[in-house]
């Protein structure tokens, strides 16, 4: 198949009078990670639920691997992997039994569940029941379950939410491997660092609308400030100076400060994705 793995045109959804998703459009190419960045209630999960067939869009068209998602097509379902925000595993089954069961639903006869568990660092606990797992281990199980059918399209809803930095880093590395394998990844998160680190492109979603969609670098370039912050010793205190990189005389002033014996540090003042989000929406990502 050529063309986007996920193609969304003007899809909308409302819960009664509340319009959760207001006609958004985007696409995700094979091997690309699209970060869906937005605060809670922005419409990220609703979008994933529509794209995974859990609910039908009230309007608009969405295609997964070229097929209309409203057609309830088992062949499309066989090609997707979903990692839910809620940890919905069979707690009374072992890690291996969980993966083998889901693999069987995809028609995989000899699943390599142990290899998948090895990738997420759970091979040694393969035969333990999931109820004995920590929060981080359960999340790794969720990720491994999403990968069991080697999906062409991956939907990951807040895959590292509430996890410790080490587990988060492990999960991010695994997501990158999946994209390198060729999977199209739609990643929802309200963690700007995660979106920045993983995503090839980032979509900002707020109140059910996409307010910006581009690579993280382009967004920073477009909405950020090109300046540096210089810290200088000034007697017993520390003085800060912000120097815009555009404009007359900035290079000379920077060279002058760089030569100063009082120079302590020089930092670029690149905008973070959160800064840009606030600038565009007037609200933070955590809300």
């Amino acid at each position, binding site marked *: 198949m050529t063309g986007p793995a996920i193609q969304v045109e003007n899809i909308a959804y409302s*819960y009664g009078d509340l319009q959760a998703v207001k006609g958004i459009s985007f696409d995700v190419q094979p091997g690309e990670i699209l970060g869906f960045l937005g605060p809670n209630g922005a419409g990220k999960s609703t979008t994933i*639920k529509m794209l995974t067939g859990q609910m039908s869009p009230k309007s608009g068209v969405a295609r997964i691997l070229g097929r209309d998602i409203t057609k309830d097509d088992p062949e499309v*379902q066989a090609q997707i992997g979903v990692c839910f925000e809620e940890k*919905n*595993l069979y*707690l*009374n089954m072992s890690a291996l039994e969980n993966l083998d069961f889901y693999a069987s*639903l995809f*028609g995989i006869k000899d699943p390599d569940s142990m290899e998948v568990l090895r990738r997420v660092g759970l091979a040694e606990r393969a035969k333990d029941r999931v109820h004995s797992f920590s929060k981080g281990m359960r999340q790794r199980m969720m990720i491994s379950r999403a990968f069991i*059918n080697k999906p062409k399209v991956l939907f990951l809803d807040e895959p590292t939410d509430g996890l410790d930095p080490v587990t988060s880093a492990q999960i991010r590395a695994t997501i990158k491997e999946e994209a390198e394998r060729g999977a199209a990844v739609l990643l929802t998160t309200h963690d700007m660092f995660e979106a920045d680190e993983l995503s090839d492109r980032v979509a900002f979603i707020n109140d059910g609308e996409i307010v910006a969609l581009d690579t993280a670098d382009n967004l920073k370039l477009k909405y950020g400030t090109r300046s540096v912050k210089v810290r200088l010793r000034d007697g017993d205190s520390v003085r800060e100076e912000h120097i815009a990189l555009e404009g007359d005389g900035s290079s000379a002033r920077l060279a002058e400060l760089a030569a100063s014996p009082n120079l302590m540090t020089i930092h670029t003042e690149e905008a973070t994705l959160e800064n840009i989000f606030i600038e565009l929406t007037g609200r933070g990502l955590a809300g």
Partner: protein
Amino acid sequence: MSFGLTWKVLRKDLALGPRSPFFLYAIILPFVLTLVLQFAFGSLFSPQPRLGIVDEGSSAITAQVEGMDGIDLTLLEDTEELRTQVEANDLDAGLILPAGFDAAVKAGDKPDLQFFIGGESLASNRIILSVTAIDLVRELEGGSALVAVDVVDFGEAGLPISVRLVPVIVFYALVMAGIFVPGSSLVEEKENGTLMAMLVTPVKSSNVLAAKWILGTVFAAVMAFVTLGLNQALGANWLDVFVVVLIAGALSSMIGVTIGVFAKDSTVLFATVKGLGIFLFAPTIFYIFPDWPQWIAKIFPLYWIIEPIWQVSIMGESISSVWLELTVAVGITLALVPAVVWLARKMQAQMAAQ
């Protein structure tokens, strides 16, 4: 609908079943109820009188005792062995019928008859066996009874209460295995989100519901069958009985799936079953109180499965005698299918909105 996927979901449910308290409860409950009710009203702890006979001449008395349901007969070859078993209380009484005994009695010779009584045997069993032995000899002699006994029944005529309670025990087996097991399994999947996790794979809700229904049907049928066996109510027509309990399981399980699809969580599930409790239980009361107008029982859906079980297993009727009841039961089962489909659509929308 893919039968392969339904089978995979069912296989998972069967594997998870023994790890669920409901499943275990459904297995244990009929055993416990049988034990309790038989202890209270039945003959579980008062076994039949045990008679041993050493028959040295093919007496007609032996053949007569063999035909009696109420006596546990043991035939022995050796007089000493009979004596030993009676002394050890392995038998309540022992009878030695010498060769030519029948001919001697018929000729009016009044031959000797040795009758051993175990010292530890129950008084009621001794009386039953003694009187039975005397009656049989008199019958053999061809004489008439010395007195005419006028038997006056006190209490309700008809079947003993221990038999009339069998539908109650079977009802509980059907409710636990057929209604609670599939219903709670479905609700648990909803609460834990595992149902949604299945529905984003090639599995459809129809696969999941069919698997739960089959699970409940088979489990309820087996438990009802076992319960009837425990209560010695299988009769000779056990194949007919199995067909009847299979249909009973199918209806119970369909009710269980309907409640499971309807209930959004365990609280609603329990409240619904409790709310429906008397409505479901009502027909069994009419077997305990046979004087009540029996037509009222027909108002309740489970009458149409309890009555065929009663007729075929307990009363020993053939399956053809309950075709109307079974047809109605199958009809109710099929009528619930559209309701389940409609509720399933609502359920999926509710789950997605959470």
